[in-house]
């Protein structure tokens, strides 16, 4: 109900008549649909026939006044609570975005603070460079992360990423940010052991900033516009770099059309990330791990995560990224009766009927095409593989944006290069 009202308001029709019913979400049981609609029918008929009020004919805008640039003055704890109570936080403590802190963050870009990098749905909020910097300060990001964050915003605003659907979906999709190119090392994006665990400022703060941007610029608030059923811890941060130095293959951003010496960020929206013990350390065992663990209920953009060791094993046997994509598409199959497209209890009306074989015992491909698959080399030593499985909206793609570095980048990198954890042995 709240998301429907918010969606209508965003489209300029705040008083669309909405009738709430009790039909289970995505119901495919006729009796349940009939009962739910029957109990709501009187209200549906009223919504269709009741004369319009004056406001429904000509809705008036609520005057909110000019928003203040400075919103609060007070001590640290007061600031934190003020922001939290306005829904501007993510539950963790925030750093105060003071004028000086934001100014320092802006050292990470040559763009003007008022420059609009993109408009972020559902609210179509203007992601100015300054607003990006404000949210970056709050998340604990460093100025060396700003170029990456700006490219991340460009990716969010790209319609091929489908933020409008994935950012608010009941499916709780998380943005997975993959960083490539020299900026990984400059900004200290972890690509090795535990890359996706907490503990590195870049991996933690870049994702956290983007989560705040989705909320504070895009206006996707939990249980109002973001209707994720279970939610997703990956919405705090899911950022990794590709371990290009230890990979035998071309990096992801080169596959996506950029030059190797350029830097880039790639976005897609998985709603799960699973780790599977490899079936064997040889090429057959590694590939079997992938094709036998694809979840048939996903059928969308799929990222195969493998360690440098696994990648080298495959490469030594002649496998390229393109060959692996094709192989996993071809042999990542299930009997058709296990595939959601052939489920006769309802099925997705949007799925392609041409993917359903005539016989339920024939096999059906899980991922729609090799182009829905990417291979990512990251992580440290170990015998586990990873699968990040995304949605399959038509036209959805892995969206890659080039990262532009500001003048004075070398000096900026030098300023923060010693900011690394020094763990003592015990």
């Amino acid at each position, binding site marked *: 109900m709240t998301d*429907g009202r918010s969606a209508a308001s965003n*489209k*300029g*029709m705040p*008083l669309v*008549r909405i009738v709430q019913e009790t*039909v289970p*979400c*995505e*119901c495919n049981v*006729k009796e349940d*649909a*009939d009962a*739910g*609609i029957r109990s709501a*029918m009187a209200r*549906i*008929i009223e919504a*269709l*026939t009741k*004369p*319009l009020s004056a406001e*429904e*004919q000509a*809705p008036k*805008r609520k005057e909110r006044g000019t928003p203040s640039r400075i*919103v609060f*003055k*007070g001590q*640290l704890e007061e*600031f934190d609570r003020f*922001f939290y109570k306005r829904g501007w936080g993510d539950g963790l403590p925030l*750093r*105060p*975005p*003071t*004028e000086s802190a*934001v100014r320092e*963050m802006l050292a990470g870009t040559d763009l003007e603070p008022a420059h609009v990098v993109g408009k972020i749905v559902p609210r*179509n*909020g203007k*992601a100015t460079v*300054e*607003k990006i910097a*404000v*949210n970056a300060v709050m998340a604990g990001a*460093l100025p060396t992360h700003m170029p990456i964050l700006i490219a991340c915003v460009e990716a969010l605003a790209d319609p091929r990423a*489908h933020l409008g*659907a994935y950012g608010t979906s009941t499916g709780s999709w998380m943005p997975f940010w993959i960083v490539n190119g020299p900026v990984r090392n400059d900004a200290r994006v972890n690509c090795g052991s535990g890359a996706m665990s907490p503990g590195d400022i870049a991996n933690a703060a870049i994702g956290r900033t983007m989560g*705040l941007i989705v909320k*504070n*610029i895009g*206006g996707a608030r939990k249980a109002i516009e973001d*209707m994720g059923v279970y939610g997703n811890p990956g919405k705090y941060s899911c950022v990794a770099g590709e371990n290009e130095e230890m990979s035998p293959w071309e990096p992801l951003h080169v596959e996506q059309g950029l030059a190797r010496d350029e830097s880039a960020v790639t976005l897609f929206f998985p709603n799960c990330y699973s780790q599977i013990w490899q079936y064997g350390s040889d090429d057959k065992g590694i590939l079997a791990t992938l094709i036998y663990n694809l979840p048939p209920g996903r059928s969308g953009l799929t990222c195969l995560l493998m360690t440098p060791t696994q990648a080298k094993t495959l490469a030594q046997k002649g496998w390229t990224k393109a060959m692996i994509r094709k192989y996993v598409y071809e042999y990542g199959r299930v009997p058709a009766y296990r595939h959601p497209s052939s489920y006769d209890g*309802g*099925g997705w*009306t*949007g799925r392609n009927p041409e993917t359903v074989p005539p016989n339920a015992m024939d096999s059906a491909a899980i991922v729609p095409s090799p182009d829905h698959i990417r291979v990512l080399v990251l992580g440290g030593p170990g015998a586990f593989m990873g699968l990040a499985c995304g949605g399959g*909206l*038509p036209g959805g793609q892995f969206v890659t944006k080039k990262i532009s570095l500001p003048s004075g980048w070398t000096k900026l990198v030098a300023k923060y290069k010693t900011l690394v954890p020094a763990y003592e042995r015990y």
Partner: protein
Amino acid sequence: MNTSAEINQRGTEYEVLSPWAEADPVPLRGIAPRPADLAGKTIGLFSNRKRAAVLTLGAVERELLEKFPGARTSWYESTTVNTPEMLTEGKAKFEAWVASVDAVVLSVAD
């Protein structure tokens, strides 16, 4: 950035900037006039291609046809699952359909 000393010092006051973005105001529109009675009218049923759309709208259709003699229904299925129809290649077809009906029920079907 806020230095550690700045953050830890008791009594330090912070003047902070708003993280909430501005958005261009969307022109507001009223909703369409309602028919006083649905008898004899053509009622549009808009499916957004979600799983429950056909079932729920089918139930609405049966109820309406039973309650309003002479009423008719006209179905429309959106071009995509998540894009406003006016922004898709189905725009012209959609506009013609809207002009042909007296009222519309859309099932969000989520």
